[in-house]
């Protein structure tokens, strides 16, 4: 935001028409509100008596949902619990297969194997009534018979068969099969290089001794991703079909993504309980919007020629959607899938707070024990999984459309599948005799945990003396005065300035939206002080992010080699669980505002780098050449040509930086702060839904307001530059 302001200041005429009077009005607004608030105290601080107890109402609403809500005799809680139960079934199967193995007593639930059959038949017959009914009726009969007979202990065929054979438990897939599976999948999608990479990364999980936990995490990913993708696809299609849906759902996505994920936890626990499934639900809520967005974008950008030819060949609207529109936007849909996978893995640690097992839980435990090295390795395991899935989905998306429907037929077309099956069967049988195949032996695990611990501690011990004076200087002379300034600001000034800016950038509707949101969600709920503190932390962090990120982005745009290294670092920084940054930051900087700012910085600088790089890279060569021909120095070229043209793009990057910084405030609450993030965190002990949700929405509001203002500004700017 800072660079926008300075830019406006320098070249008023080129930014907003009549920018001069804009600044006059802003100054007038500030003077007016400050003077008024000196005379009328209620214009400075929102009086305690005027606070509307919205938090209490929300909490009561959730208590009501939890304890009383019912449709007839069907309790609402029964409904949510049934949904949990339903979601639990596929998860159970993923766990059986990946790491748990199936015990004989779990087998009557075999019924659930048939669920995919229902799905298939529904799709296959394209909703044909008769065949669907037949399939469903058959399954219904089988499951019913299974159930009834099971009650009497009669029909336990699989169970009995297992016991007759003396098998108490069917083992999970041996680790070697899963590693080989990753390799085979890699080969199918992208050839030998990808095969080696995938198998290597997944194999390393076993080498670190994190196999079981990784598989726990992976089962959640495996089940959440299809759910989030399906849901996102459905909602996305719906939005493109119905204007009314678009009007309701699009803002919902904004809110879902801008609200820190921790704020979902309390209501999810109240409604769905704790455990693997609620963790999955929270994950799906967070990971779904990008899929929906990509679906919308994909459908809207399919060229009208393609759709036209589809219509001419006599497609029904449904055929047009499934056979023409969606396949031709396959690339962008796969990008959505990719985003869902990454978001799901980003949720791993937070989901463990409501009962997700696996790497996230282990990571929090390690942090609690100050075993940073172990935590780093567990974080690395999450990153490895993310990187493999990312490469696989990206490679799949980038394949030429024709390649998918392979021309080979018969055995060759499915050779990867058959090879995998052969490996699986062979390894499964072999595993009964050779333990090495079954489980990676503990003796061969290799961990760098202690070395990392030692290195970090040594670093903090020696670097402290140099860092401490800097810390003190920044805290005393910059952060604390800045914070006091924010706390001093009358609420009328803040809302007035935001409203006025919104009016100049986007018109009266933007003003009403932004001021309304701030007023209703933050001011009258009594969250003003926490809101302002959030704003202070985020502003400080974002200023630093821009000062650091933009130059790095420029550097990346100058050298391809630098670019590769920088982008790889960016990827790692973003997938690495942000919790890990907290501990070294505290060891070096102690608990205080600067620690918060630095922890946010580590995570939120990435978009500033990335968008700057992209923005500069995207400038047409002609423009650059023209400027060279005009005799600009490299510095002039950067300052007068490249940066101004890339500015809209850079602003979008800053927009993303703000969003990420806001999301991080919920996590830096663990360091210790008194902002909205801390409010969310403090709502956990008492499962106070209202307190957590309103604080979460407060953060979302700050994000949405910033987003609206920046988007409006970027649109205006692009229009002036004649881009798009």
């Amino acid at each position, binding site marked *: 935001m800072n660079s926008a302001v300075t830019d406006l200041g320098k070249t008023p005429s080129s930014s907003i028409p009549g920018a001069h009077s804009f600044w006059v009005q802003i100054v007038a607004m500030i003077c007016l509100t400050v003077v008024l608030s000196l005379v009328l105290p209620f214009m400075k601080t929102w009086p305690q008596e005027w606070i509307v107890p919205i938090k209490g109402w929300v909490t009561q609403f959730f208590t009501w949902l939890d304890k009383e809500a019912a449709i007839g005799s069907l309790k609402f809680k029964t409904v949510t619990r049934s949904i949990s*139960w*339903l979601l639990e079934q596929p998860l159970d199967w993923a766990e059986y297969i990946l790491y748990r193995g199936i015990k004989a*007593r779990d087998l*009557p*639930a075999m019924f659930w194997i048939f669920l995919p059959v*229902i799905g298939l038949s*529904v799709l296959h017959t394209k*909703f*044909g*009534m008769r065949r*669907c009914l037949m399939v*469903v009726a058959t*399954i*219904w009969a089988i*499951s019913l018979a299974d159930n*009834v007979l099971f*009650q009497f202990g009669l029909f336990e065929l699989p169970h009995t068969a297992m016991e007759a054979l003396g098998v108490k438990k069917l083992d999970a897939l041996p680790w070697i099969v899963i590693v080989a599976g990753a390799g085979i999948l890699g080969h199918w999608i992208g050839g030998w290089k990808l095969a080696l990479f995938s198998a290597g990364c997944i194999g390393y999980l076993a080498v670190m001794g994190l196999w079981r936990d990784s598989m726990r995490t992976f089962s959640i990913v495996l089940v959440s991703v299809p759910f989030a993708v399906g849901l996102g696809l459905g909602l996305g299609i719906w939005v493109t079909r119905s204007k009314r849906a678009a009007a309701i759902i699009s803002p919902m996505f904004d809110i879902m993504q801008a609200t820190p994920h921790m704020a979902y*936890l309390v209501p999810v*626990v*109240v409604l769905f*309980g*704790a*455990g693997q499934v609620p963790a999955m639900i929270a994950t799906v809520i967070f990971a779904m919007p990008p899929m929906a967005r990509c679906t919308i974008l994909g459908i809207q950008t399919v060229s009208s020629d393609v759709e036209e030819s589809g219509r001419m060949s006599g497609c029904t609207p*449904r055929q047009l959607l499934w056979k023409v529109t969606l396949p031709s936007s396959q690339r962008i849909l796969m990008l959505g899938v990719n985003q869902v996978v990454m978001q799901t893995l980003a949720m791993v640690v937070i989901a*463990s*707070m*409501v*009962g997700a*097992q696996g790497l996230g*839980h282990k990571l929090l*435990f390690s*942090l*609690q*024990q*100050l075993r940073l090295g172990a935590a780093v390795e567990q974080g690395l395991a999450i990153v490895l999984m993310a990187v493999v899935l990312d490469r696989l989905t990206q490679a799949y998306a980038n394949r030429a459309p024709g390649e998918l429907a392979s021309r080979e037929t018969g055995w060759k077309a499915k050779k990867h599948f058959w090879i995998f099956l052969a490996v699986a069967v062979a390894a499964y049988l072999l595993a009964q005799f050779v333990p090495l195949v079954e489980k990676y032996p503990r003796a061969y695990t290799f961990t760098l945990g202690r070395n990392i611990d030692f290195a970090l*501690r040594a670093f*903090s*011990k020696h670097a*402290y003396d140099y860092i401490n004076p800097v810390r003190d200087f920044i*805290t*005393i002379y910059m952060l*604390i005065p800045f914070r006091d300034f924010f706390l001093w600001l009358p609420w009328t000034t803040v809302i007035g300035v935001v409203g006025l800016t919104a009016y100049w950038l986007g018109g009266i509707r933007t003003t009403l939206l932004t001021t309304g949101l701030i007023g209703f969600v933050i001011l009258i709920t009594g969250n003003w002080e926490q809101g302002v503190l959030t704003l202070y932390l985020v502003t400080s962090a974002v200023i630093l992010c821009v000062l650091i990120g933009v130059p790095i982005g420029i550097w990346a745009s100058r050298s391809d080699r630098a670019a590769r290294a920088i982008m790889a670092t960016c990827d790692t920084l973003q997938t690495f669980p942000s919790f890990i940054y*907290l*501990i070294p930051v*505290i*060891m*070096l900087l*102690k*608990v*205080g505002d600067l620690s918060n700012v630095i922890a946010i910085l580590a995570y939120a600088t990435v978009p500033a780098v990335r968008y700057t790089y992209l923005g500069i890279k995207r400038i047409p060569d002609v423009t650059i050449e023209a400027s060279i021909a005009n005799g600009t120095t490299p510095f002039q070229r950067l300052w007068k040509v490249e940066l101004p043209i890339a500015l809209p793009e850079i602003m979008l990057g800053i927009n993303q930086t703000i969003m990420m910084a806001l999301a991080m405030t919920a996590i*830096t609450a*663990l*360091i*210790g*702060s008194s902002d909205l993030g801390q409010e969310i*965190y403090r709502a*956990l*002990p*008492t*499962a106070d839904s209202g307190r957590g949700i309103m604080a979460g929405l407060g953060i979302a509001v700050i994000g949405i307001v910033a987003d609206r203002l920046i988007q409006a500004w970027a649109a205006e700017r692009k229009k002036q530059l004649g881009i798009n």
Partner: protein
Amino acid sequence: MKITKLLATSAIVAASLAFTLPAYAEAESDDPIIMVQNNWTSQLVLSFVVGKTLEGMGYTVEYSPSDSQLQFKAIADGDMHFQVEAWEGSMKTAFEKAVAEDGMIDAGSHSALTREEWWIPDYVLEKCPEAQNWEGLNACAEIFATAETKPKGRFVGPPADWGKNYAARIDALQMNFKAINVGQAATLWAELQSAYDRKEPIVLFNWTPNFIESKFKGRFVDFPKPEKGCMEDKAWGPNPNATGDCGAPHSGWLKKAAWSGLAEKYPKAWGVMQKIDFTNAQIAAAALMVDVDGLSPEEAADKWIAENAAVVESWKK
């Protein structure tokens, strides 16, 4: 029209599910007992000890991680069944709320007593020999100061949501300190580790039993012993004009929390759970195996059970 077909289909699927659901629920009499796991050592080891004991009796046991505050709601609802370590210091509010409002069961206290108080590493005594006593500590407050708190000393306090008001105690005792609240326990240990490595004076919130004792040498600071008058009578204690001018109780409870349905569903297991009782020494020994000897919590539980077979047997009687 096709939408109606789809709806009809899903209605039938739903109906068939609804029909089959209750049948399954009744059939699963050998449902697993779900033990809550948190993210600190002693709790992890002890929950494995209990879980393995129950498994030895033929029950199926599963472990589910949970946030130390949200867990009580889950236990009350029966999503999780048993928590072996509930601390008065950090969980009192959530525990009591779950018992009062959601019907969670208080399954009794351990013999182990807990204490929370200001704590200093031993090396602090070199620079401030009287620091073990609160007045002595206060006299050298300045060595604990940082840039923001100068000239006051900096006290690294517990997470703000643990419901402790150390700022009020500092006021009541007119101490020259400022309390800084952290966000979570790990933050405290990071502060301690960093200061400990550099032998920098630090005073922070700590409690016992706790893995810190086995890793760092230090002691609690003595405050005026809390008596009845402290919180009510202004005249009581060092400051004649304030209440609350005393330390924390030396013996807080350590409780077990359970789901209300346990007694009916697993009567024998419930009997064991009520008898389970750990002492401070037992808890410290369990945590030590992980924090110092480097065993995994599960291995430590096996070792603990082997070494304390008699104790485990006494629960089963």
